[in-house]
């Protein structure tokens, strides 16, 4: 752990396309950047036993999750030549078709961002204590399992 401040990665509810658009626009002043890469996780309307998922309700062990997001950031900056990186994850209810995870990496050159983005997303899935409760249209539920 270093002395850089741990950021809050969580956003209540879905991540809007306006938020994502504004985030991209903010980088126009960072003119050393030559390549951005963005991952957007979207809630999928999976069908299980003839019932369809309507939304996912996210909860997290927030302190540990933010600490893990921080560690992932630090490790990613060490591993790849990035100019900047942003991670946002939803908490609470996100309906099908809406965005629940937004990862944004930027670098002077493209090859770094392709590799870095995959690394960040896989690390998040493996190491961050976030839980998705999948809600069906009839209000029953099951707990999401990452594949």
């Amino acid at each position: 752990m270093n002395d850089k401040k741990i950021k809050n990665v969580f956003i209540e509810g879905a991540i809007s396309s306006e938020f994502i658009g504004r985030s991209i626009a903010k980088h126009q002043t960072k003119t050393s950047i030559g390549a951005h890469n963005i991952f957007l996780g979207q809630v999928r309307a999976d069908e299980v036993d003839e019932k369809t998922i309507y939304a996912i309700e996210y909860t997290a062990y927030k302190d540990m999750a933010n600490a893990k997001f921080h560690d992932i950031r630090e490790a990613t900056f060490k591993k790849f030549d990035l100019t900047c990186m942003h991670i946002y994850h939803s908490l609470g209810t996100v309906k099908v078709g809406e965005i629940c995870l937004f990862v944004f990496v930027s670098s002077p050159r493209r090859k770094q961002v392709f590799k870095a983005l995959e690394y960040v997303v896989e690390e998040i899935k493996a190491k961050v204590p976030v839980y998705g409760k999948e809600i069906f249209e009839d209000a029953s539920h099951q707990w999401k399992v990452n594949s």
Partner: protein
Amino acid sequence: MNLNIKYFGLLTEVTLCSEETVPFSKATVSELLDLLFEKHPDLKNKDFQVALNNEIVSKDTLITANELALLPPFSGG
């Protein structure tokens, strides 16, 4: 000493709470789990890891913090 236990995901449906406080003296994670299994027998059949001070720890770790979390497999993103 009181120890605050946090439960997440599926485990909250086994314990019927998201956190609880148990009176506790110096011991290891596995000794604490024995106590929790007595209280919530169905926990025994569930897949989870234990976190202390924001890190996953092994069952023989001595508990030094006053908060501990039981974490089922993660499902973020």
